[in-house]
């Protein structure tokens, strides 16, 4: 990748790196904290770490370093809140012409259940699930990002889906 050429100690390379990964890092932190402001604080601090250690970090590993740093912050510092994500669109499932109030209510109820079920997932399952669903990342990409094996990603995803279904169907 072009942005990863050159030392991170160089201002313009760093800016490039920052611009490339800001949104992804922000999303990642957000999946973990569920709080907009604290997510921002955490990623800024993580970028500071990258900057401070720019000489020591192999540019090709910088992305992993960044995400690992964010991850560690959650292990060490941040007290977990319940992560409840909000829906961006209000599009209804499939049958968009169906305006039947009972149907709409049912759908809203489903959405609510899904939010709660996601909030109740283990962090690791939730982050994999959301990286996959919200950002459309492939399991392989997620594995690379989190520095874990693809098998592990698939395991977590599978578990997440199972739990979500169980919660939603009330099994």
């Amino acid at each position, binding site marked *: 990748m072009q942005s990863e050429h050159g030392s991170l*100690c*160089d*201002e*313009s390379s760093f*800016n490039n790196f*920052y*611009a490339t990964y*800001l*949104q992804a890092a*922000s*999303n990642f932190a*957000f999946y973990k904290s569920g709080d*907009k402001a604290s*997510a*921002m604080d955490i990623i*800024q*601090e993580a*970028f*500071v770490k990258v*900057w*401070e250690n720019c000489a020591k970090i192999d540019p090709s590993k910088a992305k992993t370093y960044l995400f690992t740093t964010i991850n560690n912050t959650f292990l060490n510092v941040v007290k977990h809140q319940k992560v409840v*994500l*909000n*829906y*961006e*669109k209000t*599009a209804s*499932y*499939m049958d968009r012409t169906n305006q039947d109030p009972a149907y709409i209510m049912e759908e809203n109820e*489903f*959405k609510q259940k*899904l939010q709660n079920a*996601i909030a109740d997932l283990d962090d690791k399952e939730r982050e994999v*699930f*959301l990286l*996959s*669903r*919200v950002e*459309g990342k*492939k*399991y392989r990409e997620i594995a690379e990002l989190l520095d874990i094996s693809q098998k592990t990603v*698939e395991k977590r*995803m*599978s578990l997440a*889906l199972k739990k*979500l*279904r169980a919660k*939603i*169907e009330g099994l």
Partner: protein
Amino acid sequence: MDKEKDILKWFNGELSDEEIKNLQASEGFDTFEKIRFYSEQFDVPKRDVAASLEDFKQNYRSKATKEKTPETKIRKLNLSMFYKVAAAVVLLATLSYFMFSNNMYTLETSVAQNKQISLPDGSEVTLNAGSKLAYNKNSWKNERNLELEGEAFFKVAKGEKFTVQMDEESVQVLGTQFNIKDRENYFDVQCFEGKVRVTFTNGETILTKGKAFRMLKGKKGYVYDIVDEKPSWMQQESSFNEVPLSEVIEELERQYDIKIKTENVNVSQLYTGTFTHTNKELALQSVAIPLRMEYKINENEVIFYHNGDK
């Protein structure tokens, strides 16, 4: 289990339509389908790269740089031309009111202007119009000393003694919120949180939350009560409680960049009331009407006068 694998593949976009069809009959398909559909709709905060990067440099990296060695500073000199220019523009745009003289850091507001500043210890100061604030950058670490001319609201971070020095008075606190107004003939301190010690030529007084102290030139100071949580000027208003008209006029001049003259008006009479900072006519009326004055406006000059027979 094969089905489980298929579902995983499905969620990874690896299944053909045909294969999805086969899956449809399986248990839980409806639920998964809906999970798939709705989980794509979650909202994540969108970040503005330019703004975040600016914030990063201003508020995060600079902190790290300060604590770090010259190593980082040397790096800063390697800025590309673009960033030199960008930095210069940003500096000009945002810090045009910061000046360096010796090691004094000075912040000044002109008429009809408010400014906010964060001090190195995290304390925040909001300057009202026509005011000036200064502190010594070098000694700040040891002593939180500020000089003030004019009016400012202070939100002081907890820590050692915090002193605001004026010509004749000084105010000391530990960690609190308060407002100081130090104008030529008028001195006023309002305490919104914590405790404040006010020292003046002939003595000192301690204010607790909800108390304020006022001293008019040549008169004895007195303590009075306040009910607001913040000074009114921070809500784009100026409030007065039995304050000489001359003082109110000065404030009008500062907020609206106008000159006010009076004809046949007793400027030492007391005014109680509020004027807005956003509408000049309304503000002038708020002062004139209760005191039964009239006014005329000639460009930037306003004249308050009494109609003879009233």
